[in-house]
């Protein structure tokens, strides 16, 4: 069947891309081949716009066992253990069907981890929504959280961390980024490289249906709501749990030589990638693929994105053993093809060849683009806005809204700062009995590694607002913040994974954001010595004319040599409180400006990466030595919010003894609520805090003794005098999620 003129546009290939396809193939493609090229050359699979930029990112370090290119990255954490992790987006599906979109996002990233031979031990998520006063956004939040919990809880993988941020730019285009962490022994790491011509290709897990047809292609175009109808996948975590256990059991033997999950672009992508990575060919017959629907064409089978499926490359003598293991887990395994030595991906339909393409054409010949880049005039204007015209706060105690205390209460009860308890309590975060620092208790999550004395810490961060005002600086901040959060629990940051969520790269302003952010991220990764070991790119996050705030999410993982020695947010009665790091707070891009003045404006705070590294090193050493057990970085809302959060977490008040360290302008609001990187509040016994201050100053890090923890009030310089209970009540109302059965009283005697 010939390809009709323009038919390639249905699989989102441009006229030029189709011409290139015909040129490299040396002929017109068959319809199945066209569909396969459409998927493999989509932005989602082919990284057309990001690939030329991503080479700037550092990916190597002595402790990196597996960098980008495999299903997930892997690092050495000592004692012969490898930690495998990756973050991935499921934005477009979640915009349309939030519960299933988020659930299958979790399912996909979990498969990436156990495909590597690692047992998943933790999930984190990074979410973005429009403001909660829009009912649709509340619906999206509720269902995305429900979907993440519904899938992860059933799998028995604790969801231990995350972040959520609200801004109108995410109206209609929420972001759902899920990160999974797994652990295995070095020698047990599995790669997805087919090898050994004659080896058998087996498909394990769910039957194949028409769900998710063209998901990869449509994740790469604007306006998800019109494009995604009918292409949403539905998750089955029960099936995934069986698949997980079956696959991990199979990896104990030598029968399976490669494993590749079926994610975006389904069978097409997994067969092509497996063959291409291994430098071999593959031949499959779609008639051998078990279906859940009748009448499916070869094209549909090759492009289905049915969930919970896994491709195995198995030695011929091991097929029976593999089948028996799989069947013991109540699943079935089908032999659908073989590995060949001719480098061709050959697809048959009941014997008839419907596609025959050299594997490398799909992966190596995908066009890449360097687009025109120009910052939007609007962004420049916002960044240059004169912030000095904003009235300062009075420097005396008063309870009104326009006072330091009033602003503090207001910020604590705002959606971007308030407690996330109503979200993380819907996730099972205690299963596996390994959660040492739980959600809400520290700046990062700490997990123990059973069988060793070690722990790992994980955090996921990005300040989308900083990135919208200055993508280079904002992306660098994301790396600094994520690693700082690890340091605040006492971990040594080792590596990061990233998820680049951006708008349309074909627009100059969109490409500017993407290219600047990657460059900024690369500079921070180098300075802080954290390579990027895995990642994902999600572009075209635009509804109509409004792109999202660029969001290069950073998931960071670090190690604690002795997991018993760590830090949390909570201080103790009588502790001395100090601020380590002397960066000047700034109102530019702050939550205070956005929440209190409705302004996304100014330049985000400057980031001195050398200072950042020095602050992180100093605080980590103090925690690692066992002298400091309380640390919290100053994030959204600045120093005032950081101190209030520590008081709330511990239920112990604090009295400032020093003047609050402010910025050059001398403004009261800037000193309390201005934001700056490299600032960590610590608390502990007087001699230990004084020793830390001395060592910080010795390392060139300005540090200030702030005051003492104690009592039940937060008292400061005559500007704040509030009961902790009042702060806690404000903080608890941040997401203001109404009880679905409000008015119903629990039953008690």
């Amino acid at each position, binding site marked *: 069947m010939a390809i009709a003129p323009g038919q390639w546009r249905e699989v989102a290939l441009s006229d030029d891309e189709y011409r290139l396809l015909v040129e490299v193939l040396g002929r017109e493609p068959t319809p199945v081949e066209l569909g396969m090229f459409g998927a493999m050359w989509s932005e989602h699979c082919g990284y057309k716009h990001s690939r030329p930029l991503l080479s700037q990112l550092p990916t190597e370090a002595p402790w990196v066992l597996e960098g980008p290119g495999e299903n997930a990255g892997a690092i050495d954490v000592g004692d012969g253990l490898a930690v495998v992790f990756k973050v991935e987006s499921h934005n477009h599906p979640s915009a349309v069907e939030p519960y299933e979109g988020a659930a299958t996002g979790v399912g996909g990233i979990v498969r990436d981890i156990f495909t590597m031979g690692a047992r998943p031990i933790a999930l984190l998520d990074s979410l973005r929504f429009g403001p909660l006063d829009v009912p649709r956004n509340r619906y999206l939040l509720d269902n995305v959280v*429900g979907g993440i*919990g*519904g899938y992860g*809880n*059933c*799998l*028995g993988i604790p969801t231990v961390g995350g972040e959520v941020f609200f801004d109108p730019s995410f109206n209609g285009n929420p972001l759902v980024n899920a990160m999974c962490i797994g652990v295995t022994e070095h020698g047990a790491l599995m790669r997805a490289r087919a090898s050994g011509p004659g080896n058998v290709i087996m498909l394990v897990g769910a039957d194949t249906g028409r769900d998710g047809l063209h998901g990869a292609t449509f994740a790469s175009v604007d306006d998800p709501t019109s494009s995604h109808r009918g292409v949403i996948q539905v998750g*089955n*975590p*029960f*099936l995934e*749990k*069986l698949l997980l256990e079956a696959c991990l059991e199979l990896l104990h033997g030598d029968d399976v030589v490669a494993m590749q999950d079926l994610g975006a672009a389904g069978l097409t992508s997994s067969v092509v990638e497996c063959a291409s990575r291994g430098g071999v060919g593959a031949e499959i017959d779609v008639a051998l693929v078990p279906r859940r629907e009748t009448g499916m064409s070869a094209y549909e089978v090759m492009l289905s994105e049915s969930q919970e499926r896994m491709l195995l490359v198995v030695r011929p003598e091991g097929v029976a053993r593999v089948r028996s293991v799989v069947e013991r*887990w*109540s699943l079935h395994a089908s032999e659908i093809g073989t590995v060949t030595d001719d480098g061709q991906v050959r697809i048959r339909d009941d014997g008839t060849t419907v596609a025959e393409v050299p594997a490398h054409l799909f992966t190596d010949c995908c066009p890449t683009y360097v687009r025109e880049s120009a910052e939007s005039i609007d962004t420049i204007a916002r960044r240059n806005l004169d912030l000095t015209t904003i009235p300062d706060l009075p420097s005396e105690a008063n309870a009104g809204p326009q006072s330091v205390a009033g602003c503090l209460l207001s910020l604590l009860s705002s959606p971007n700062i308030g407690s996330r308890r109503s979200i*993380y*309590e*819907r*996730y*099972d*975060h*205690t*299963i*596996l*009995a*390994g*959660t*040492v620092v*739980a959600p809400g208790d520290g700046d990062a999550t700490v997990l*123990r590694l*059973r069988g060793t004395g070690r722990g790992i810490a994980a955090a996921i961060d990005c300040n989308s607002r900083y990135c919208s005002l200055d993508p280079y600086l904002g992306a660098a901040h994301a790396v600094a913040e994520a690693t700082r959060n690890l340091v605040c629990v006492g971990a040594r940051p080792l590596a990061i994974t990233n998820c680049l969520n951006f708008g349309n790269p074909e627009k100059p302003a969109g490409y500017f954001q993407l290219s600047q952010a990657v460059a900024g991220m690369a500079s921070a990764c180098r300075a802080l010595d954290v390579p990027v070991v895995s990642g994902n790119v999600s572009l075209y996050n635009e509804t109509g004319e409004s792109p999202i705030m660029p969001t290069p999410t950073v998931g960071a993982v670090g190690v604690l040599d002795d*997991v*018993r020695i760590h830090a949390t947010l909570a201080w103790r009665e009588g502790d001395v409180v100090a601020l380590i790091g002397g960066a000047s707070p700034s109102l530019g891009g702050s939550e205070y400006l956005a929440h209190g003045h409705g302004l996304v404006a100014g330049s985000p705070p400057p980031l001195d990466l050398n200072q950042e590294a020095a602050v992180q090193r100093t605080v980590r050493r103090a925690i690692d030595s066992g002298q400091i057990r309380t640390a919290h970085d100053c994030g959204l809302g600045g120093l005032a919010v950081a101190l209030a959060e520590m008081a709330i977490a511990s239920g112990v008040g604090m009295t400032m003894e020093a003047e609050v360290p402010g910025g050059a302008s001398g403004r009261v609001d800037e000193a309390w609520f201005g934001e700056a990187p490299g600032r960590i509040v610590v608390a502990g016994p007087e001699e230990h805090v004084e020793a830390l201050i001395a060592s910080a100053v010795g390392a060139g890090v300005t540090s200030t003794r702030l005051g003492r923890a104690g009592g039940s009030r937060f008292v400061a310089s005559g500007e704040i005098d509030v009961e902790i209970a009042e702060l806690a009540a404000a903080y608890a109302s941040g997401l203001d999620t109404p*009880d*679905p*059965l409000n008015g*119903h*009283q*629990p*039953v*008690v*005697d």
Partner: protein
Amino acid sequence: MRSWVAVISFPGSNGDQDALSALRDEVGVDARLMDHRETTLDGVAAVVLPGGFSYGDHLRCGAIARFAPVMTEVRSFAARGGPVLGICNGFQILTEAHLLPGALLRNRTLRFHCHWTHIRFERHGNAWLSNVRPGEVLRLPVAHGDGAYFADPETLDRLEANGQVVARYCEQDGHLSPTSNANGSSRSIAAVSNEGGNVVGLMPHPERATNPLIGGEDGLRLLRSALEILAVPA
């Protein structure tokens, strides 16, 4: 000879490894996983039905697991007075199997809840309660979507009269309050037993509270009863 504790793995059980590890590594008894297709409990001194989502919670939590082959043996084991402990999904399975009275309904909020809670023990007895005193409060995590214990008032009265109410959700000091009963259980019930006291179901997870490092070790107070169970000759 009865010498070991069987932790039953159903398809979709996900608390089986935690229960196994708590019993074997923290309590120090001989505990082993047992497949749901097993048809004999020879040598088994006690049975633990762990938490999780057996059969994906399809149909109803525990409704399919009750038909697993091993459950025939668990039923006769329980009838002979053998100690059976159901944790979370295991509790749900035991009610579905009619080894325990009542049912576990959707939480009052209609949402999954994971947090640390306190439960007050109401009785002391054989099997699983040998280490806890009436009035004793333990701090344990819960993690469930369907944990609201329900039975009709007559059944509840009978359970109270028979001493089958094993534990209730409470505040740290042991008093009952609307907030301590987060899932909306009838009379704040967190754990019940059968009439013989040998079959116990509880919603909180003692196997996740076995070390101060992970938030507490109160779970060991309960699980250490396995030591006494194994000490009793068959």
